[in-house]
């Protein structure tokens, strides 16, 4: 390389001077061509959209994006086939994306590149707020279909005062599954305080059964003890979510929130979890629970359809209770609001998409989805009820709702949620960090996220 250059150096200067601008020119020309091509496609697509929605009688095809878990696909297919029966001129195509944070990325990337499906199901709460709703999602605040939605749901899909989604399923609760057979064999009662829960666990441990199932191979499951504790936090510090969002309160500096981490640490200190909890997956955890190899499992009630499907003979052996606090009289349930169904703002078929959302947000829609998959809690649609055929474990949650002893999880009240919580709870639950160290680490994680969100006061 170097040799050749020096050999021909005498002739180089002039030719270089000439070729350099030419290269620049070509590069600019190419860039311009690429850019104009981009804008050209968006123009043509938007013009075709107005044509197709207004004066065309032919069938319209909507796309629907949901996550690829078996249950989500079952529910989406149920919605689609019921809706298509009522609207023969609209066809809906199902697309799937991965679950969890990989799926979050897919959604964000597809929105950023203008390649989103017409309708998509996605989390409500803090995750939804991270989608830049005012830019990407269709504002549904003044749509008549919102009348069907209960007020409890609306804050979870509200961003800067505008509402962007309808609930795409039933409410979920976070708490403790327990095996009723084991409980009755040992004459245990459902615990109302954390101490009772620990006593029960000690008795179970004495018989050689795993008292608490740990499934940290799927690290998201390690967060449950901390997240499901929010009802107890709220009874002690009613304004915590607001203080937390504005950086006036921290996790490590608030005794009530620190207590959540201490509970997790206690499970480790008492050696309550199965020996291989770091290598056990969520699916094997459900199996342990159903087969009675483990007695209790802190988990979301969204596990119910999977248990009902895989262990139909054991589903009636399984019960559910809220994560107890330190005061038996203040016992209540932390709930996860349903995910939302959203319309992509740039969709070419807004009217048809609204029709589809109206169906999802109707009593008819809830019946459809309840038939396809067991509800994991009440629906947040006016007039909708849970069918009698649901497993007992779901019915056991209803008293909490009926007597208003519920609080939404923190992620529905505050946009602040650190992405490393699951790693930190694994550390606390496996004894790498103490509760205080874990809470402090989470505060740092949260600070990073709040700064990225550009919140005031951080």
């Amino acid at each position: 390389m170097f040799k050749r250059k020096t050999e021909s150096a005498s002739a180089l200067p002039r030719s270089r001077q000439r070729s350099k601008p030419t290269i620049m020119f070509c590069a600019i020309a190419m860039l311009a061509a690429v850019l104009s091509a981009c804008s050209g496609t968006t123009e043509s697509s938007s013009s075709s959209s107005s044509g197709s929605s207004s004066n065309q009688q032919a069938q319209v095809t909507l796309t629907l994006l949901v996550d690829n878990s078996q249950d989500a696909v079952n529910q989406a297919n149920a919605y689609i086939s019921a809706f298509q029966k009522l609207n023969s001129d609209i066809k809906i195509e199902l697309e799937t994306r991965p679950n969890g944070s990989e799926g979050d990325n897919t959604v964000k990337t597809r929105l950023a590149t203008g390649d989103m499906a017409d309708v998509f199901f996605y989390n409500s709460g803090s995750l939804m707020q991270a989608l830049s709703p005012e830019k990407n999602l269709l504002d549904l605040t003044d749509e008549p279909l919102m009348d069907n939605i209960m007020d409890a749901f609306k804050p979870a899909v509200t961003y800067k005062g505008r509402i962007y989604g309808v609930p795409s399923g039933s409410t979920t609760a976070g708490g403790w599954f327990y095996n009723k057979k084991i409980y009755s064999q040992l004459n245990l009662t459902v615990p109302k305080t954390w101490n009772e829960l620990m006593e029960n666990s000690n008795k179970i441990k004495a018989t050689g059964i795993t008292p608490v199932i740990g499934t940290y191979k799927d690290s998201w499951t390690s967060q449950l003890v901390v997240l499901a504790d929010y009802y107890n936090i709220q009874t002690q510090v009613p304004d915590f979510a607001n203080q937390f969002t504005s950086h006036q309160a921290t996790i490590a500096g608030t005794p009530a929130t620190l207590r959540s981490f201490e509970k997790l640490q206690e499970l480790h200190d008492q050696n309550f979890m199965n020996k291989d909890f770091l290598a056990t997956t969520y699916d094997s955890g459900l199996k342990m629970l159903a087969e009675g190899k483990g007695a209790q499992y802190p988990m979301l009630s969204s596990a119910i359809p999977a248990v009902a499907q895989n262990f139909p003979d054991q589903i009636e052996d399984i019960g559910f209770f809220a994560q107890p606090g330190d005061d038996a009289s203040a016992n209540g349930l932390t709930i996860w609001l349903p995910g939302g169904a959203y319309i992509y703002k740039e969709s070419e078929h807004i009217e048809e998409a609204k029709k589809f959302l109206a169906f999802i947000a109707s009593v008819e829609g809830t019946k459809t989805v309840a038939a396809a998959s067991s509800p994991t809690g009440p629906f947040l649609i006016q007039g909708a009820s849970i069918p009698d055929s649901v497993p007992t474990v779901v019915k056991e949650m209803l008293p909490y709702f009926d007597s208003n002893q519920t609080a939404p999880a923190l992620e529905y009240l505050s946009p602040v949620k650190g992405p490393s919580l699951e790693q930190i709870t694994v550390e606390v639950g496996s004894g790498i960090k103490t509760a205080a160290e874990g809470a402090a680490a989470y505060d740092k994680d949260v600070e990073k996220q709040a700064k990225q969100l550009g919140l005031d006061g951080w």
Partner: protein
Amino acid sequence: MNKTVKQTYSYWFLLPAALVYLVIFILPTALSFFFSLTRWNLTEWEFIGLENFVTFFQEQSLSIGFKNTLIYAVVTCALKVVIGLLLGVVLTSKIRSKSYLRSVIFFPTLISTIAVGIAFSAMMHPTEGIINSGLALIGIEGPDWLGDVRLALLSVAFVDVWKGLGFATVIYIAGILSIPEDYYEALQMDGGNGWHKFWNIIVPLCRPATHSVIILSFIGGLRSFDLIWTMTKGGPGFTTDLIASIIYKQYQGGFYGLATAGNVILFILVTLLALPLYSYMNRKEAEL
């Protein structure tokens, strides 16, 4: 045609390649240096200076990756060199079924890393995995390979070595076979034994092969991601996080600017470590 026209004419042929290079390599690199200084959500950005880099170096959960990455790169690199050389010697000696054994050694290199990761994490399961079941047969209680904080990183490094060894061995086989017979004959005349042959002929004359293996496996180790991700996802907690997996997690969290800053740091780190190593070894090779 005069000389200048001829020169320009030939430069036109470079243009398509130069454009491809500009659009696919130079532009993204420059952009990523820029976006590492911003808070960025793929569509909008805000310039925040070096804040991303400060966050990266200050936060314990992020900086843990530097130590792990170095340990991982050094361990995998050293093992590949040592075991690769030994296997290379065995597989160039006069044993039967030599070519069969060579293909056995090379076989793991052909499997997808993801498949290897999944298979080994199943085999390393503490209670149901085949490794600990085997150990239990001879009365040893095996550790939790991927759950033990002190072991997990080394377990993954071991799998990386198992998978990458075939490649190192092939390079060594080529290096050993290229040594002229004369040296061995001279050694025989002087009455040298097998040990002399290994230490005084094979090791020094294989130095170019050693250097290739070191550079390739060291840079590979620094950038390693897929195996860690399939086997531990950086866990338990953050104990096996490498820089690459930390970057990926920031990206997953939606912190695109921060993730890009991590990539720039990784780029600089690889350059700072690999370039001096490379030039040092080049000098050594010239001395040969």
